[in-house]
């Protein structure tokens, strides 16, 4: 595939991610921070996000499993996850966190468990999507092209 084609593919893919709500404008902000002196910025940040999120999700799973759930702690974790997901533009993950937090406040353990599953699922979806995107980017760069600048116009 030649570069132009790959770039077009990349653009279409990005657009679909936005349309489906996986990503929001904040992701574009990250992209804009990437330049020659920081060529892998987005990938680095997202990797950091993965690391942090997986830790949080594990902790949440543990906390919600035990009998006397410490909802405060759960809430703190979810709040953190909400913060980091919103920082990278992971919209669906963020929304799932918001719903999660509401149930936390109500101390509704069943709903919290359900929300946790939801968050985990959204997280997995996002991870897959981003991996596809990054792979495309690598191919473009490898072929000598540059990653297009995306602008939200919809």
């Amino acid at each position, binding site marked *: 595939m030649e570069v132009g084609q790959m770039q077009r593919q990349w653009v279409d893919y990005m657009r679909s991610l936005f349309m489906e709500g996986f990503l929001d404008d904040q992701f574009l902000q990250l992209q804009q921070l990437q330049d020659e002196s920081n060529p892998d910025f987005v990938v680095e940040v997202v990797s950091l996000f993965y690391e942090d999120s997986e830790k949080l999700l594990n902790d949440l799973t543990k906390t919600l499993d035990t009998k006397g759930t410490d909802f405060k702690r759960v809430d703190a974790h979810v709040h953190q996850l909400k913060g980091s997901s919103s*920082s990278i533009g992971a919209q669906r993950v963020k929304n799932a966190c918001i719903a999660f937090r509401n149930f936390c406040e109500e101390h509704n353990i069943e709903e919290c468990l359900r929300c946790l599953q939801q968050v985990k699922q959204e997280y997995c979806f996002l991870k897959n999507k981003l991996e596809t995107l990054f792979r495309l980017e690598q191919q473009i760069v490898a072929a000598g092209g540059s990653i297009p600048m995306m602008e939200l116009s919809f």
Partner: protein
Amino acid sequence: MNLTNGKGSMSTASSNAAWKAGDVVSDQFPAGLRVLVVDDDPTCLMILERMLRACHYEVTKCNRAEIALSLLRENRNGFDIVISDVHMPDMDGFKLLEHIGLEMDLPVIMMSADDGKNVVMKGVTHGACDYLIKPVRIEALKNIWQHVVRKRKNEWKDLEQSGSVEEGDLQQKPSEDADYSSSANEGSWRSSKKRKDEEEELHQQFVAAVNQLGIDKAVPKKILELMNVPGLTRENVASHLQKYRLYLRRLSGVSQHQGNLNNSFISQHEAAFGPISSLNGLDLQALAASQLPAQSLATLQAAGFGRSTAKSGISMPLVDQGNLFSFQNPKLRFGEVQHQNASNSKPMSLLHGIPTSMEPKQLANLHHSAQSLGSLNMRVNDPGAQSNPLLMQMAPSPQSRGQMINENIGSHVSRLPSSMAHPIIPNGISSSVLGRNVIADGGRGAAYNSVSQNSSMVNFPMNQTTEFPVSSFPVGSTPGISSLTAKGAFPEDVSLEIKGSGGFVPSYDIFNELNQPKTHDWGLPNAGLTFDASQHANPLQGNIGIPSSVLLNQGFSSSQQSGHHSGASSVGNTMFAPGELMDQRNAQHINHLNTLLLGNSPRVKAERIPDASSQATFFPEHYGQEDLMSELLRQQEGIAPAENEFDFDGYSTDNIPV
């Protein structure tokens, strides 16, 4: 920052050099701004760092508050601004904010994914210079340098100002300044190489000593003696005291409602208002607010207002002018309020505190006029209504009203005072309002102090306030006022003149809105009168700070603007409220009053305040007396600003965080 005094060699540091230079190295500025960013979220931290770098700032990041603090301590002048997350595992972001404010006095920006009003408010009260909602965009970071510049500017100003008033430290000023500005300075509290816990302990001792002496009387020498720490110099204490005062001022400005203020202002006012029935408070306020020009007062008196003013002994300086009116109006209606006044004593006292000195003659006049009003005689707290002569005069007829007022007063008393006494009221109002709130809230008193401080409000061109007194009587009796409004007893006639006066109208409107369910937005429980200090700490502050002229003209709009202003507005309202009460009674008087004052206040109140927070209602609904207003305004123009009359505790309008 180089102090002009030169003593301190301000040099502290490169930052100073860079900064003061701020004007000099400006072509590069804000590039090179040294930012310390603290966040336990590694993703956010990385993004922020990248963004800040993109803004050409020098970034240092850390994920623990403790580390951040030690970084700051080790390198006092190493940073220009700090950005910190609110929720952190090892230390609450606000705590960190306080530490930084006290020890280094750097501008701090708070950040959080939480955008709840309470959290943002907390940021404000703790002294954060800004609050960013996550996710943070680079645009938001581009302008953070403004906080650094602003702070430096204010520090200079504060240094100059406070330095000069520092008791016994006048000579020390230069050195103090030096201490203040230069961390490297040997004399500075911080500069001594103390460990963090030592510093904390020292600070605790310092605070204990200051509290013992009383913030107003805390002099470095005495503090030093009380602390009795070997090796600590007076200079150390002096510079630390300066910072501490700024810190408190910041807090109080913001959270006056929260009772942070220990302003003497409030205490005196509260005391004053305490015994006075709410009505009285209203009266005072009305009087205070009614800065009606002497002539207008006379007119008012003729109208029969003079009642309560004389009695309550409210020393509303403004009363002379417009207060008379304020009292008068309330008087008419306060017949009933009187009973209730007792409850509002708080606000009343506020009025007392306010230097609204009603001339006995005037009072007498008012008295007479009040009588003419008849039933409205407010018997302000029979028990302790001394404060509101006006109240006392309230005719019994408005019994129903009175009750209403009382009810309102009770709750709103605090509010009223502020609103009532425009010129005076501001002080009074604040106090009363505070008182009210204090009463109502049981403890917001401090908040009131702030109000009193804000008395700058009082400075409002009470002249305009005269309008208030007319109808706003209820202001004083916040509780009553609220009730008044609730009852809707206020006749329409008594449209708030204030409106006419052109200043108040707006406020009242706001107030009215406030009173309405909308007030809930403000957080005013009582629709208006009460300063919802806790909630609207800021608003109040803001209002208070509003220059009297603004306030007056605005009508208490300024006061009203902030939810808490309700207090202020309530004052205004109260002022008018009486008017409304009066309507029934003395249509003619009312008209007269209206002409003098805004006149429609009573009406405003009654109608407006659906929820007994009559305060809002008083205003602006009926500013019918356009001509009166203009007349009043004219008169007011001629009257020296009451501002000087109020002896506010050094909180000028400028300082009041609006």
